[in-house]
């Protein structure tokens, strides 16, 4: 079964939780006890409609404040696909959550309140989805019921958004506009009779139709070694296999490979998936690889195709998203985790801060605060094997760990 991860973003009141609740309700994914809880709560709050946002707002603090404060995961499925929605909050101070949600998603839904149109928040959401190179973005123009399902208003908003699109860095992103009313259910799962001027798909129809080409960019295979498996049993006495996940492309038995950092050459002898041997390990599969030659390999090494080497270097420049309340300064040292590899890193220079609303850059900054996005150079204590993020979403990204608190304090996308 195919699994599609979707990142949602929107401002506080543009109906994101309601949209998700509506998707759950119309796909009959809300169980009777949950529906009952929503009905009771809606009644208690004095609403004359069902408040589907109650289906998703998880923590007590959120229920008190009536807002979502962290990434929540919501699940539903159709006969066709399983869906995981990473629901991230939309207010300004939570850029870090949007980046986090977008990093694991293949599709993004940007919500716009039809009454308000494209606002600063919309720029921000789009900027982050584009920065994270999410291949498919759906712009859901919501609350159409409150603008009398006006085609003119819809076109106006669409034009405003298209103006924004010309500024984006990642131009290959596929963008679809859909007029919806999450509250009333128009064009979410079921086609609306109130938008005869709209001939496109409903939100769910669009999601159902997405295939791998709409989700992944073509890439080259990278195999970071996670764990070395040596059973030392009678049956597998000399067995030495390399466990890991294949990213970006596929690897096959017989492929000529190079092992980094030693740059030793070898050939793939076998690929195991549990107790079966396979010819080809596809992208995203967790396999076990054996090589023709006896090579010394440990965790953090990388197996790549011989004619397809990544950059091996002790320094790089990246766009980073800062996520910690302690500021980042030039000269600070952190742990950089690139895939399964951890190295010490020093901040060489903050080049400039990027305003994530397309209003330009600020090259006077000395420090980065939580939710800032900036271009920063790092120097490492040993080389890593990376690709530019634009060429390889996995091998071009890293996280930053504070070695004192052990917290994940930032994420980066190598240029």
């Amino acid at each position: 079964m195919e699994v599609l991860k979707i990142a949602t973003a929107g401002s506080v009141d543009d109906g994101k939780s309601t949209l998700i609740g509506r998707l759950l309700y119309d796909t009959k994914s809300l169980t009777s006890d949950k529906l009952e809880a929503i009905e009771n709560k809606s009644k208690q709050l004095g609403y004359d409609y069902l408040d589907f946002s109650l289906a998703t707002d998880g923590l007590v603090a959120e229920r008190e404040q009536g807002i979502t404060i962290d990434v929540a995961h919501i699940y539903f499925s159709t006969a066709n696909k399983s869906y995981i929605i990473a629901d991230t909050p939309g207010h300004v101070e939570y850029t870090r959550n949007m980046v986090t949600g977008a990093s694991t998603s293949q599709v993004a839904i940007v919500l716009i309140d039809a009454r308000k149109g494209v606002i600063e928040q919309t720029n921000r959401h789009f900027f982050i989805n584009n920065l994270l190179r999410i291949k498919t973005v759906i712009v859901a123009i919501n609350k159409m019921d409150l603008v009398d399902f006006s085609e003119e208003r819809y076109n106006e908003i669409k034009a405003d958004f298209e103006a924004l699109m010309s500024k984006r860095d990642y131009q290959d992103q596929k963008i679809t506009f859909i007029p919806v009313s999450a509250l009333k259910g128009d064009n979410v799962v079921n086609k609306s009779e109130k938008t005869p001027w709209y001939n496109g798909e409903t939100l769910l129809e669009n999601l159902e139709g997405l295939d791998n080409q709409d989700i992944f960019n073509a890439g080259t295979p990278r195999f970071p070694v996670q764990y070395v498996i040596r059973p030392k049993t009678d049956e597998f006495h000399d067995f030495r296999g390399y466990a890991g996940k294949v990213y970006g492309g596929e690897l096959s038995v017989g492929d000529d490979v190079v092992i980094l950092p030693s740059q030793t050459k070898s050939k793939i002898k076998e690929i195991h998936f549990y107790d079966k041997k396979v010819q080809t390990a596809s992208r995203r599969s967790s396999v076990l690889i054996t090589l023709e030659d006896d090579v010394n390999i440990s965790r953090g090494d990388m197996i790549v195709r011989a004619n397809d080497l990544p950059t091996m270097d002790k320094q790089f420049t990246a766009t980073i998203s800062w996520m910690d309340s302690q500021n980042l300064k030039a000269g600070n040292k952190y742990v950089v985790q690139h895939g399964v590899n951890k190295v010490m890193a020093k901040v060489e220079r903050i080049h400039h801060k990027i305003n994530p609303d397309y209003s330009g850059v600020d090259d006077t900054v000395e420090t980065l605060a939580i939710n800032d996005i900036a271009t920063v150079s790092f120097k490492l204590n040993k080389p890593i094997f990376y690709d530019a993020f634009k060429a390889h979403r996995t091998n071009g990204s890293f996280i930053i760990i504070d070695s004192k608190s052990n917290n994940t304090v930032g994420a980066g996308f190598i240029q």
Partner: protein
Amino acid sequence: MKDTSNINPLENEAIYIMREVAAQFEKPVLLFSGGKDSITLVRLAQKAFYPAKIPFPLMHIDTGHNFPETIEFRDRLVKELGLELIVRNVQDSIDDGKVKEESGRYASRNQLQTTTLLDAIEEFKFDACIGGARRDEEKARAKERIFSVRDDFGQWDERNQRPELFDMLNGNIELGQNVRVFPISNWTELDVWSYIQKEEIEIPSIYFAHTRATFLRDGLIWSADDAVVYRDEEEEVVERIVRFRTVGDMSCTAAVLSEASDIVSVVQEIRDSSISERGARIDDKRSEAAMEKRKQQGYF
């Protein structure tokens, strides 16, 4: 030979997580309850390390109120796979005076497990505990991370969770802290059942329809085992054909009326069903914020 193009992304993600645990931690343990989720975890761990053995032990926090079928199953599985099993008993924590047995109609040892678990983590110096919790089970769990850091007291701070980006799992912790790991975070109940069906994984017989002495309370069906489950005299015992959707402590796990006697009919039933899995767990019904409160105290 085939390829792996027809992969199950959830299975591959879980295998990746299992391997990260083995690589990043000194002393991991797999928390095993005998329920379908932890049985699924065992299969995923086998897949992650084959042809080597699973490089960590299993641990069962035994409330003493388990279904006997679960315990039999547990012991057989451990023997067949040659795994190491650690058992720690809630009864011992009661006898030591560390926790007090609840009394009354809704008495359950479910909450008492937390103390026994935290003591065992300290006893063995476990730094990573793998569990079968899923985000779809309950609203507070929807926010849980895959690597969830707990302090010395086993406490969860939902406001201070590490962001998890891409596939990268940050397992850096201080001495005394430990990480709860949830490899099947992204699975739904149906995903687990479909996997059990496809992989032909054996599960305890109580998951399938059987005849059982039961009584009704608050619209739920309870096993009439007077030694473990409190029952008022007027709560009449009736034999019913039931099965369990979730296998926890007997005192807080209700049965459902069902004729589903094999995996095919169980999967079909789950597909058609309209009551959520935790709807049959009285411990969550106590209050809307029940799970979140228990989690802050160190419950799994």
